[in-house]
């Protein structure tokens, strides 16, 4: 197979990804079209894996759990009731997979153990942003701050701030009530704010 053909296939796949609505893809998967499931994977793999990574804090584990998420999705797609909520449904599976992993792998499953790579532990005195290092530092600070949130708050914060989900979607994914998730989100924002404060131009406490 030459490179042009590969490029063409990738291009076709990208076009189809843009064109197909979730419901159509789901119908195709249900009828045995595995290529349609590949399109669903292509569309959602990154956000799903990002969400899982934010939940568990370890890259290899996140990859493993993302695979598990899509395998479960494939198995369960016959039972998906509302085809327009594919994304919410996938995140719900990912949440369950991540939670199960946290329960089994970590003694205190509310807190995650972070990988050393990319994580920068900084005390208040050290928080003097250097332009050349700021992005790496900031990544480390955010990652560490996320890990310090309890699982409920981390879940809600990640879904809102990073995944831009509505409260209603977050409630469906997590199973939390709207009032609970609002409270968790507010507290999570406050905790995160304290940790990233040195990187903010304005030190305002909401």
């Amino acid at each position, binding site marked *: 197979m030459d490179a042009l053909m590969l490029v063409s296939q990738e291009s076709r796949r990208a076009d189809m990804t843009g064109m197909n609505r979730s419901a159509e893809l789901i119908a195709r998967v249900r009828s*045995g079209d*595995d290529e349609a*499931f*590949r399109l669903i*994977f*292509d569309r959602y*793999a*990154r956000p799903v*894996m*990002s969400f899982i*990574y*934010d939940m568990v804090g370890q*890259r290899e584990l*996140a*990859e493993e759990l*993302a*695979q598990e998420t*899509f*395998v479960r999705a*494939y*198995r369960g797609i*016959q039972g998906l009731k509302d085809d327009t909520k594919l994304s919410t449904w996938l995140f719900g599976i990912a949440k369950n997979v991540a939670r199960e992993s946290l329960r089994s792998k970590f003694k205190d499953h509310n807190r995650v153990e972070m990988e050393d*790579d*990319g994580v920068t532990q900084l005390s208040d005195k050290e928080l003097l942003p250097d332009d050349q290092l700021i*992005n790496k530092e*900031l*990544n480390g600070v*955010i*990652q560490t701050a996320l890990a310090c949130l309890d699982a409920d708050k981390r879940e809600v914060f990640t879904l*809102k*701030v*990073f995944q831009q989900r*509505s*409260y209603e979607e977050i409630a469906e994914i997590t199973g939390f009530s709207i009032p609970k998730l*609002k409270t968790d*989100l*507010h507290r999570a*924002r406050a905790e*995160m*704010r304290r940790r*990233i404060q040195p*990187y*903010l*131009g*304005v030190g*305002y406490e*909401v």
Partner: protein
Amino acid sequence: MKCEDCLPIIEEYFDGELNAKTAEQIAAHIAGCAECNAAFEALEQEQTLYASYTREIDVNPALWAGVQARINQEAPATTVPADSVRQSSWLAGLRGFFTSLVSVPRFSPALAAALVVVAVGATVVVMSYLQSRSQTEQIAKTPATETTAPKSSESTAVPPSVPDNGNQVAVAPSTSKEEVTASKEEKNNIEVKPVKSSAEKPRSLEAKATKQPDSISDAEQLLRDAERKYVAAITILKRDYDKRRSQLNAETIARFDAALDNIDRTIAATKAAVKKNPGDPIALQYMLAAYAKKVEVLKDINQGS
């Protein structure tokens, strides 16, 4: 609107979760309130910062290959009945799995196990039924004359380990027509007795077929289905083994191949017997037992090698 009304819901406003009317009121208040405006800008700054967060993760081809491999293994066992169209689908999937060259091959896949369970289940039900019929009819004519098990003198004898239920279970004959359906009670009270020798195999089922044509036809169909499922399971396990061969030493390969050849000869012999006596439950029994043995040996090889 006052600050004490605005600040508690300013995050909801920022998140776009308020209704239009309240959102307008907040917007109007923020425009004229330095404190609330600062709170809103703080949220914007935070969001900008979070938006710059990058994770050291990558959706690489191995990720999909891993998903695909597991889907190809598991899909038929969960969503696909064994018909030809879907079988071709999972066979295509298996090809994808073996060509993915990513991730460690998983041996003794769930699909093979599921197929064997189904096949053994079908064998148990049908053989129990056929035997109960044949025994009943024999007993009706002559008193029970149990004989010793054949102990298959050939080296290719089929141990009963996998199809115990189908191979060595003799259902106590009923005395009435109620025996037609192999009831749960009968299955729960099964008695393990020596297998009848092939010399004493029951009379041809053709006679029974005239009495219960639909039941016998269904039973044979079930047995054929069971055979197909064994064959499918063997295909999968054999591919696992073929994949693993390169990791084994020549002596081990020779030993495994000899064992498999031995069983293949048994399968061929039992198939020939079934061809000669298509309605003979004992012949079918031996054939399915031979398939089951091959599944068992392949599983042992894959797990142990």
